[in-house]
């Protein structure tokens, strides 16, 4: 533990008014408002929000009921508290859903599917105290208006900065989730199309047969009204078949389209089976399609899970849950944790001593994100084959985007801020062009892209668009309604955004343009509604619409127009020229706190390290980072040696069979604190553990012994991934081999003959062990008079919380590990500098280093020497084959004394 997220220093007002930035000053992220509101937690920026924790919200813009929330992650009602999800869904959904459209593009005979790239928007509602990263996506639904169903996933937080600073990561993770959903949706859509095609073909054959019958019946019937109707119907069915075939072709060509979205991730191996889906189709009984339109509001819309193959849906939810977990905690916490991780990666050599396992995070380091969602990918919906797992991976583009700046480039450090800022702007621009397949759309897409990217930066523009959208989506088109936004509402908006000056000013800059576009929009909209109504009254048109279930091509066309028109006034913001955009970008993460700069120096022994000194600047993207996700594994407890008496096994998480997690260790911190406060000889016990002398905790009560062991395990250097060096409960006499294996043993005190042999082993090996008698409250161990541990084993400590104590001792232990590392790898402390030097000189130098430079007494030196031994062994391990060197057991012959309470 290098950083302590729990410990945040107060800022102090500088009396003299510094002019030059102090490199040691706390970065803003860690600072606390100088004059916090009365009665409020200075750290809680969420105090005025109506929800307590961040959550993920999935909403849909339903064509029947408008924006509606679908689910939240975590899926508990208390998460959002009194927060109005419906209102918020309205806010977030009204931003962008029209960006996607389907319809007859001008000059095209068939309806076109657009492969809409997702859009990413940050918006806030300061009245609600809610800010959100909103990720819009559209899913295909054959029965939906324009074949599309707009959805959005939002990460809702009360802390705007958190969202802005985590934007890139949020975007990445939500892109993955979205890609997962969309991949499933494409499958489902293709399936649906195929089924529909069969229906149509069947209907066609039925109609043909009827027509044939009519023809046979005689020419007189040929021109009857009925016959004409039938012929029309047949023609329509034929047209519909062509259209559906085309749609199917389009959806299957999904992967062949070029993609320019750097945030997009691919969901591999998903759609492979689709092309041959038609051949493999299982027995499906085609149905006759009635030439009658189902009422738009009668039909039941598919649920999200139905839209995307269920397995994909579940995988997405898992991904989002994971995302929610990894973003828990406030910005400062996230920041410190990442810092901590980044630094720990550099200290691989000593991490094994006291740090919990970093897990598979190594893999992300290169910038590759590899979440494995165990989705069963069935080539066929109806037969479950043994499926390859879905692998979500970023596209190569992504790699480049995330690559840390070239460490050798001297400019990269200084220009980093600007670079990433530009990069971000660019990525915004690139992320938004929504449709890459329609060659006819060229220019309009450009503008559209800029439009939505603009929104992501400018709050007010978004809001005004919101207003526009809310208006435009009002269920009944009232021509008399206000064409301009409600003045009250507008003022309200202004007031809301007063906290965000930037946005307000940005809004003012655009003040002229927006109402115009709104006017146009609404008029466009009305026109389209009229068209639609016309279409509905038109018989032929009706026929067509009936056969082709999505009716709203005209509407969609209008919307396209709307978008085009609406975005037209806003020029494509180029990073350099768009002055009002520039300030808006600043909240986006581009710079770590300066505190990092001091920590960037690697220890270099021999040649300089290859690791980039700027690596710390890069926010390491974590996936499985949260220890909580491993808790379930860690709780699994198996102890083959113990003849458990059945008391609470959960008291100790340690033992074979599970990775010791951070959470468990934090929990153990409470026990450690209790131990330190309760036993005046705690320091001696800790010294035994830290200097490598096996500590035996002897007691009759299993629960107590286990708890003690769990607490003390924090002090076992290099306990192993699963705590292999700790034996929480042993009820048989131990042997020398056990002492070699375990550094902390919980031993059952028994009064029977077994007990006597146990005591025999205790006395026989007494020179190798220290004995903590939990019943008598005594400790038998060599005397320790050092000062090093006084800090962490002060029984008058003021620390009251276990987790705080844990962090406190983690930082002390980390400090120790760093010293041990230095000691181990300092050449002249172990080897002669010149040929004339004898071993005595080297030894003298070593002693001098330990005593004078590190200020350690004899017993404190033993700790360092032991840690150094462990580091050496760890370093040598791969070369020497591991087994032999690992089993060495060192000790020394010293007298023990008995400590009592």
């Amino acid at each position: 533990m290098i950083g302590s997220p729990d410990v945040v220093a107060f800022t102090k007002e500088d009396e003299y008014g510094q002019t030059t930035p102090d490199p040691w000053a706390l970065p803003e992220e860690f600072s606390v408002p100088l004059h916090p509101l009365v009665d409020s937690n200075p750290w809680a920026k969420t105090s005025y929000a109506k929800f307590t924790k961040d959550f993920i919200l999935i909403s849909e813009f339903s064509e029947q009921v408008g924006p509606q929330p679908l689910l939240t992650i975590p899926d508990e009602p208390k998460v959002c508290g009194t927060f109005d999800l419906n209102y918020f869904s309205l806010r977030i959904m009204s931003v962008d859903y029209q960006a996607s459209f389907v319809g007859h593009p001008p000059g095209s005979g068939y309806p076109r599917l657009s492969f809409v790239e997702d859009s990413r928007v940050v918006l806030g509602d300061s009245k609600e105290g809610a800010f959100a990263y909103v990720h819009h996506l559209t899913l295909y639904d054959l029965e939906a208006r324009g074949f599309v169903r707009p959805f959005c996933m939002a990460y809702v937080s009360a802390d705007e900065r958190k969202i802005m600073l985590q934007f890139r990561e949020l975007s990445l993770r939500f892109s993955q989730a979205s890609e997962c959903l969309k991949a499933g949706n494409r499958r489902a859509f293709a399936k649906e199309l195929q089924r529909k095609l069969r229906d149509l073909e069947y209907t066609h054959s039925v109609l043909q047969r009827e027509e044939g019958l009519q023809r046979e019946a005689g020419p007189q019937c040929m021109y009857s009204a009925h016959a004409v109707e039938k012929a029309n119907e047949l023609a329509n069915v034929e047209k519909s078949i062509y259209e559906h075939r085309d749609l199917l072709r389009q959806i299957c060509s999904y992967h062949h389209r070029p993609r320019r979205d750097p945030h997009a991730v691919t969901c591999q191996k998903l759609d492979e089976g689709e092309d041959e889906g038609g051949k493999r189709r299982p027995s499906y009984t085609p149905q006759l399609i009635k030439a009658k339109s189902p009422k738009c509001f009668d039909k039941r819309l598919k649920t999200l899970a139905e839209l995307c193959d269920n397995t994909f849906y579940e995988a997405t939810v898992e991904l989002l849950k994971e995302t929610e977990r990894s973003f828990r905690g406030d910005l400062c916490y996230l920041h410190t944790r990442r810092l901590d991780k980044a630094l720990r990666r550099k200290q691989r050599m000593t991490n094994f001593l006291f740090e919990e396992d970093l897990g598979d995070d190594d893999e992300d380091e290169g910038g590759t994100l590899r979440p494995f969602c165990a989705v069963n990918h069935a080539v066929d919906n109806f037969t479950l084959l043994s499926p390859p797992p879905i692998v979500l991976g970023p596209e190569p583009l992504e790699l480049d985007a995330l690559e840390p700046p070239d460490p050798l480039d001297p400019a990269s450090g200084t220009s980093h801020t600007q670079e990433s800022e530009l990069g971000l702007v660019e990525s915004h621009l690139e992320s938004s062009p929504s449709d890459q397949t329609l060659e006819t759309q060229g220019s309009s897409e450009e503008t559209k892209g800029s439009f939505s990217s603009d929104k992501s930066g400018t709050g007010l523009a978004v809001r005004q668009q919101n207003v526009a959208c809310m208006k435009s989506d009002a269920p009944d088109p009232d021509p008399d309604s206000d064409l301009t936004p409600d003045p009250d509402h507008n003022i309200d908006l202004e007031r809301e955004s007063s906290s965000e000056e930037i946005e307000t000013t940005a809004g003012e800059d655009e003040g002229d343009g927006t109402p115009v576009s709104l006017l146009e929009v609404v008029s466009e909209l009305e026109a389209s509604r009229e068209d639609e109504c016309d279409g509905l009254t038109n018989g032929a048109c009706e026929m067509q619409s009936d056969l082709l279930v999505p009716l709203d091509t005209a509407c969609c066309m209008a919307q396209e127009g709307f978008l085009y028109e609406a975005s037209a006034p806003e020029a494509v913001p180029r990073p350099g020229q768009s002055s009002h955009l520039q300030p808006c970008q600043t909240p986006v993460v581009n710079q770590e706190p300066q505190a990092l700069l001091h920590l960037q120096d690697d220890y270099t022994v021999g040649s300089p390290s290859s690791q980039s000194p700027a690596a710390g600047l890069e926010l390491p993207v974590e996936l499985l980072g949260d220890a909580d996700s491993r808790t379930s594994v860690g709780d699994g407890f198996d102890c083959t040696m113990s003849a458990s008496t059945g008391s609470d096994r959960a008291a100790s998480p340690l033992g074979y069979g599970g990775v010791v997690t951070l959470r468990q260790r934090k929990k153990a911190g409470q026990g450690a604190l209790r131990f330190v406060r309760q036993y005046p000889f705690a320091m001696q016990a800790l010294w035994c553990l830290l200097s490598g002398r096996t500590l035996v905790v002897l007691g009759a009560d299993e629960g107590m012994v286990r708890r003690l062991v769990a607490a003390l395990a924090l002090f076992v250097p290099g306990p192993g991934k699963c705590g292999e060096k700790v034996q929480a409960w042993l009820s048989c006499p131990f042997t020398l081999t056990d002492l070699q294996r375990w550094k902390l043993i919980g031993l059952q005190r028994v009064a029977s003959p077994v007990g006597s042999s146990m005591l025999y082993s205790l006395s026989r090996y007494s020179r190798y062990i220290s004995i903590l008698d939990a019943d008598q409250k005594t400790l038998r161990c060599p005397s320790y008079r050092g000062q090093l541990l006084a800090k962490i084993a002060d029984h008058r400590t003021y620390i009251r919380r276990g987790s705080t104590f844990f962090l406190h001792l983690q930082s002390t232990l980390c400090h120790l590990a760093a010293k041990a590392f230095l000691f181990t790898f300092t050449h002249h402390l172990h080897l002669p500098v010149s040929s004339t030097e004898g071993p005595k000189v080297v030894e003298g130098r070593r002693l001098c280093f330990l005593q004078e430079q590190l200020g350690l007494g004899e017993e404190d030196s033993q700790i360092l020497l032991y840690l150094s031994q462990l580091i050496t062994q760890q370093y040598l391990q791969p070369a020497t084959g591991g087994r032999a060197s690992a089993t060495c057991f060192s000790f020394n012959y010293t007298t023990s004394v008995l400590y009592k309470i």
Partner: protein
Amino acid sequence: TSRRSRGGREKKKSPVLCIGEEQPKNWFTELQVLKGHFDIVRFLVQIDDFRCASAGDDGLVLVWNVETGERLQELRGHSQQITAMTTFTCENGPTSHTSLITASSDRSLSLWDPDTGNRVQTISDLQSSVKCLLVLERLCVWVSGGEELCVWNTDFQLQCQRQNQSDTELPKNCVAAAVDKEIVIYRLTVSTDSSMSLAEIHRLSDHQDRVRALINVSDGLFASGSHAGELILWDAIDWNILGYEHILWEESQACSQAEIRLAAPKPSESVHSHILAAVGSGLYVYSIRTKTVVAYKKVAHDSNVLHTMLLSDSELMSCSEDGSVRMWEIQDLPLPGEPASPGFFGMWTFGRSNKQTGLPSKKVADVPPHIRTLELTGDLIGHSGAVQMFASFGENGLLTCSTDHLLILWKNGERQSHLRSLALFQKLEENGGL
């Protein structure tokens, strides 16, 4: 007649000798447990500077690297316990190659190559199992002793044989063999056609009890020890008794259980002035020069001593059934007039010997003017069973084997730490930094 046929021993009531936890002279501060055997490990034979072979009741012979603790070879072939093991170095041309000869209760003898783990030669269906092995390197032959004495050449061809029990090499191609209470001297003659013959030339019957130990002290001396605690130093040329010492241990077990074990520095090593005799749980240092016991510890261990070794003129080591290895130093008494302060020596040396003054023991009663003491300088506790044997590798460490199926490699922690540090910097250099 087997050495192994010791019955159950009654527990010693003598006070436990304890050195305490502070052992500044004990530099064995690191240990490594070597696992591999499935039964009692009885024999350790040093192959070269860094290799050692262990063998025991499981019939397995394991070759270890004592520097790393690695198991190098596993020699499988014997179906029953190993009864004797020795190295056999035969200089063939410029290079000498060391092989291992093992004897087992399955009445077979095997020659192994410890480098490859191959069984090079094997003889089975012997009339009896071999109890001891003796290599006569000068003649490039080796002798096996059991119920019969056989002489073999390097190719495992039987040269000649005689009835016998245990043997030691003597000058003039003579072999001394202990047969019950007698020591029989054989002479090995190599005729011109390089055939060998074995002729009994002398019989020494001065021991009152079964001869248990027979060692070669120097070119002109050999020593024997009997079950009753007699130690006789013989002239190897004319078979005269040079010195006779009857070491009497505790009266309660005088006849039945105790036995004598002898140890002396190898003839090749420096000046040999002492013979170390272990009688029961006691240790006696016999000076060849003065022909007297110069230092002793009547109760050196809690139980019978199983193996001893003189590390130098003043340092010795012993292991015992009590599961410990003890290191001793022969020290001059600070004041010859005051043999000991009771607090220092406790009641277990002089106190006890005072009680025995009435017995026909001459040893303790007439204390020679410069008798010295045997001081315990350290003990190694690790095995949970009797320590059968140990082999010292100098500063590389000490290997012990035990009834608990384990071997323990004891090392100098400081030295090992230094070696590891060297290895670390070497690896660092190879890797070009961290």
